[in-house]
């Protein structure tokens, strides 16, 4: 049966064992070196969806940025502390961008965060925000007060801007719409079909 057993048998078995043993390293190297090619994130600058998954192009997205500076080290959004997490309309994870530093939307600060996107046909900003954050089963719960000028958001994902302390007078959740600071509150914001709304902590 093995009458033709020869050099080839030995060499092939040795190579196979070497490949199997070094496979974890090969795989790790490969994943690191192909990260940019594999990324399905939108990389055209000036696109309202820059840095977001390409399947969200022209759809509605909400992002929440959690600062990781020592300024706000008492933040509590502990579920989303690694890079940026992208969730689809059902709350399922699409991917986690662990090196989100180069991909941070509308912010020069290093942040971690979460984006929920792929929505369509929302018109009222506040309704969109509540429904989109609701897909995470409470991880992104929104706390707000009803004020004279509509809802005032003070807490997202357990991070209450009013309770932040640090080298500043006060902090608040700031609203951005398609790359610019929104000139209306979330209660008056009219959604476009390609709206990306971003919440991040601002200080004064």
């Amino acid at each position, binding site marked *: 049966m093995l009458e033709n057993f020869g050099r080839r048998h030995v060499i092939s078995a040795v190579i196979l064992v070497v490949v199997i043993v070094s496979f974890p390293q090969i795989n790790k190297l490969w994943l690191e070196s192909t990260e940019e090619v*594999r990324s399905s994130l939108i990389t055209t600058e000036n696109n309202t969806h820059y840095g977001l998954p390409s399947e969200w192009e022209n759809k509605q997205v909400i992002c929440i940025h959690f600062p990781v500076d020592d300024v706000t080290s008492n933040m509590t959004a502990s579920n989303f502390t690694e890079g940026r997490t992208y969730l689809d309309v059902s709350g399922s994870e699409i991917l986690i961008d662990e090196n989100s530093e180069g991909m941070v939307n509308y912010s020069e600060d290093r942040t971690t965060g979460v984006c929920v996107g792929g929505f369509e046909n929302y018109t009222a900003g506040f309704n969109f925000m509540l429904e989109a954050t609701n897909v995470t089963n409470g991880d992104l719960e929104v706390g707000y007060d009803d004020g004279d000028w509509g809802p005032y958001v003070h807490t997202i994902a357990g991070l209450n801007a009013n309770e932040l302390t640090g080298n500043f007078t006060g902090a608040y959740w700031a609203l951005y719409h398609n790359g610019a600071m929104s000139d209306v509150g979330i209660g008056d914001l009219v959604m476009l079909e390609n709206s990306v709304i971003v919440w991040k902590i601002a200080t004064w």
Partner: protein
Amino acid sequence: MVAYHVFDLNPVASVLLNLSLLGVICWSLLKIEKNYSNGHKFIILGLLALLGIVGRILMSPIPNVQPVTVIVLLAGIRMGAKESIFLASIIALFSNLILGNGVWTIYQAAAWSIIGCSGALFSNKLDTSMKLILFAGASGVLFNWFVSLSILHSVGFDMLMPYLIVGIPYDLLHVVGNITFMIWLSNPLTEIMSRKIENNLNFEVSEYEPKPF
């Protein structure tokens, strides 16, 4: 209640254990075949199916290193397309009863069938061992990419390319595994597959005349 069987084998130990089990099974099956098989196609097909199923299950701790691709490829070359389709489907179905059944089963069966059929198609051209080895290596990539299409049931088309790129080290494993299995299995399996019926296995009912009372 104490579960005596629950203890952690480290991965290397479990692979070695499985490999020795596989070795014993292969050795004994091939011995049995040599002693008892008269070259009837059904017996040989059953034996090859068993080898593929057992081989795939026992090698499963190492992703993509399994003898099935080489078995169906050789079956296509030495026996024919229909035989390889039978083996591909039976092996995919029965090994996935243990490894996990799903929509990918049909893709695996189809991919192995395609490999077997292309082996049958090019059987005249695959006349040197080097060509066999190269063909076995290429089948690994073909198989992986074909089965990867099954992710399109759950994600969009634009996720396919990143998925294939992530899988390339796994393709490499399949290629190296196939080449090794081809070198090791080509001769013994070819010997079994090309055995002609040597002595008649008598399936016919022998006629006898009942004695009158």
